[in-house]
């Protein structure tokens, strides 16, 4: 880490304020506020790994906080075990619980996942109250007062502050590392567009479980510390829905999905609320809670991306303009002038079948959507898949990429070593070498073009640096090198379609499935796209494309398959197929042939 980079020194300076201010002022009340600041910011940062990065809004996170609290105090009380060890036990237990609870709940959409986590929290709280033998029930437990590092109890407040600050740094570090790693990218992808993520080989459940486990671990650690700091716990205050909501709220206000957002949100809101609680307690209870509620609604309606989300980019630019700051990204200098070369040489023999679908059948209720369809794609060819609207082409595509399971029939893919595999899920198809685009383009809107392509590249490497290099090469092939830093949502239709292709190509597929990549393009873009598809084929990728722009289909295809009403109508060389009277009838109507 370069200490002269303004991003680094500004961050260090800002963080150190958390220590310097209370130490300067010296009053116990201020110490208390800053200790709370650090612990809540740490909790919010840990929560953000699940709620922000993974997009699973948990309102029951206090479960892990509570487990950590009770583990530390109970082990201390019953077995005189140091809270430092008790903390670790609690954290491991929390991690296990997090897996058991989350795994069945992941398939629940947003609010239902939140409701399920609330239900879990309530169950745990009620059981804790009920099991007085174990937990002391509603009356709670007081930590035995032993002073010393071993017992995590001190007379001086500044030691507590130091430890809380340490936890904050730890969670920030973990959060930062995750965000910039492959896991971080994968979490964004799964959060934004799960289907597109699976198409580049990501396993959503695995990725979310890792996030939950990390988050639960650190939440539990902080819970243990807080229990020793407050010296008293009871089920209502540790297994607290209010606490879960507060933590989530700080992360939202600061910015979900950012590293420093939760800290910023906590720093801005918590002191106001705590001071309000202190000064205005004669006005009545509940003022600080009202502040929380109103601020939350206001933020949601005005800056839903949170403070860091909304102002982060401009702030970073200002920081970069300070002495020592860099303006451009170093690695942009590496622009390869060689044409893109696939990482593995195609070991197959040109002309041999590489993707084979035999007798596929699929029913949707009473509709026989796919009727005994067999398609064989040969290595090195471009196969056009055409047919009238509603004929079932995309349904076939979805089966060839794992998004739909045929009710009967077999699909197999030949690997570079000659072996056949029969993938089932979209991730398996992706890893078997099938890349695909989606008819309605599914870019990861808030990521840059480069980051979008990197998501495909990550399938074969876990290093961000390598992924970036590969992504740049693919960008060259698809004419996107000029807009690597553009947010995907700001691209034109043509750009988005090329991005779809680029992301699929970055997975280094052997087969590329293109679903109407030319739709909605103006004629100039169509010619560019046609040229790109040819380059792709020439680099060793076999192509199967659904298309309606017939001029392009005729120019590109080696062979054409026509689908009508779910069945294969005919197949063969372009000229034969397009002059076949059955095909003309399917497209233009029965009487056209004679009209």
């Amino acid at each position, binding site marked *: 880490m370069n200490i002269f980079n303004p991003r680094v020194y500004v961050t260090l300076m800002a963080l150190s304020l958390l220590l310097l201010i209370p130490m300067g002022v010296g009053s116990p009340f201020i110490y208390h506020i800053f200790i709370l600041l650090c612990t809540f910011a740490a909790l919010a940062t840990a929560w953000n790994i699940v709620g922000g990065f993974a997009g699973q809004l948990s309102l029951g996170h206090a479960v892990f906080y509570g487990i950590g609290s009770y583990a530390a105090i109970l082990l201390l009380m019953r077995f005189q075990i140091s809270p430092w060890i008790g903390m670790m036990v609690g954290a491991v237990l929390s991690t296990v619980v997090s897996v058991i609870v989350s795994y069945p709940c992941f398939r629940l959409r947003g609010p239902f996942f939140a409701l399920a986590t609330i239900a879990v929290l309530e169950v745990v709280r009620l059981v804790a109250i009920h099991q007085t033998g174990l937990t002391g029930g509603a009356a709670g437990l007081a930590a035995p007062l032993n002073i010393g590092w071993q017992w995590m109890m001190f007379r001086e407040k500044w030691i507590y502050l130091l430890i809380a600050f340490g936890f904050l740094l730890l969670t920030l570090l973990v959060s930062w590392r995750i965000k910039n790693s492959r896991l971080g990218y994968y979490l964004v992808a799964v959060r934004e567009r799960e289907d597109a993520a699976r198409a580049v080989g990501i396993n959503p459940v695995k990725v979310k479980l890792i996030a939950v486990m990390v988050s639960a671990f650190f939440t539990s650690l902080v819970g243990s510390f807080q229990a020793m700091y407050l010296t008293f716990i009871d089920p209502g205050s540790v297994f607290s829905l209010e606490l879960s909501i507060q933590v989530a709220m700080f992360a939202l206000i600061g910015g979900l999905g950012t590293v420093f957002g939760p800290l910023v949100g906590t720093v801005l809101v918590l002191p106001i609320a705590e001071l309000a609680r202190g000064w205005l307690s004669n006005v009545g209870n509940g003022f600080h809670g009202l502040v929380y509620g109103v601020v939350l609604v206001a933020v949601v309606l005005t800056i839903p991306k949170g403070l860091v989300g909304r102002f982060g980019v401009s702030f970073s630019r200002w920081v970069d303009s300070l002495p020592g700051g860099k303006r451009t990204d170093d690695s942009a200098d590496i622009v390869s002038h060689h044409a893109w070369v696939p990482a593995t040489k195609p070991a197959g023999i040109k002309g041999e079948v590489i993707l084979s679908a035999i007798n596929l059948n699929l029913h949707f209720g009473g509709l026989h959507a796919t009727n005994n369809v067999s398609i064989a794609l040969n290595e090195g060819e471009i196969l056009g898949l055409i047919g009238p609207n509603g004929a079932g082409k995309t349904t076939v595509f979805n089966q060839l990429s794992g998004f739909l399971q045929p009710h009967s029939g077999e699909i197999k893919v030949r690997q570079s070593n000659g072996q056949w595999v029969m993938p089932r899920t979209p991730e398996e198809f992706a890893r078997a070498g099938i890349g695909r685009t989606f008819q309605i383009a599914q870019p990861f809107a808030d990521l840059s073009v480069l980051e979008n392509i990197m998501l495909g590249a990550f399938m074969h490497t876990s290093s961000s640096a390598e992924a970036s290099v590969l992504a740049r090469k693919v960008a060259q092939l698809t004419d996107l090198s000029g807009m690597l830093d553009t947010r995907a949502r700001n691209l034109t239709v043509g750009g988005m379609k090329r991005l779809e292709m680029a992301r699929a190509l970055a997975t280094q597929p052997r087969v590329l499935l293109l679903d*109407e990549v030319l739709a909605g393009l103006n004629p100039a873009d169509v010619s560019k796209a046609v040229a790109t598809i040819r380059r792709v084929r020439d680099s060793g990728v076999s192509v199967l494309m659904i298309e*309606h722009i*017939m001029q392009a289909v005729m120019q590109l295809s080696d062979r054409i398959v026509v689908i009508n009403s779910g069945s294969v109508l005919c197949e063969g060389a372009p000229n034969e197929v397009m002059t076949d009277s059955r095909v003309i009838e399917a497209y*233009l109507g029965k009487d*056209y042939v004679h009209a």
Partner: protein
Amino acid sequence: MLKLHGISAGYGGTEIIRNVSLEVNKGEVVTIVGANGAGKTTTLRTICGIVKPESGSIEFEGRKLDGLRSDEIVTAGITMVPEGRQLFPHISVRDNLLMGAYKRSARSMANQRMDEVLQIFPRVRERLAQMAGSLSGGEQQMVAIARGLMANPTLLMFDEPSLGLSPLLMSQVFDVIDQIVELGTTVLIVEQNIVHTLKIADRGYVLENGEITMTGTGQELLDNPHIRKAYLGI
């Protein structure tokens, strides 16, 4: 009766149709033909007010339509039978039809209108109490068209009425459309199966890549080789 001047529209900032101008006169049958992705559905949705045009204007019976809400446009007398039926699946066929008469001016006459409409669709009459989602594809299409008629619209628009239907059902649907045309309703059809529509159409427009490239009478377009190129690439 309906005039589009230089309409450009799309979704989320991307333009699907550019500078589209067309006219439908009272009592006419007009069709828009073009390959998939050309922008036919977008054009109809813009007329309905579901999509707001970026530029251009729409006039209907002298009134400005662009900028009005979709419910106001329905009240003005334009109804669309959308692509893929779009019935209310867990509601009875009768209630689906009644929904067709939702606009205020149609409500009081709804039951009477239902009787009239069901004359054209005897098979639908048999299914009034069934959940619309349980009907077959062809029956659903009949219900969708009947529902469109319930509002007694001045202009009735069809978006690919034969989509996904077997040839037999397709011809039944076209028979029904013929009947509607006989009754004097002004019709605008977007249809993939162009032969039938061009035969009954008074005039047609060809939409390619979001722009109108040709127009003429139904017969002129049917004889024109450009149509084959637009659909088959040859």
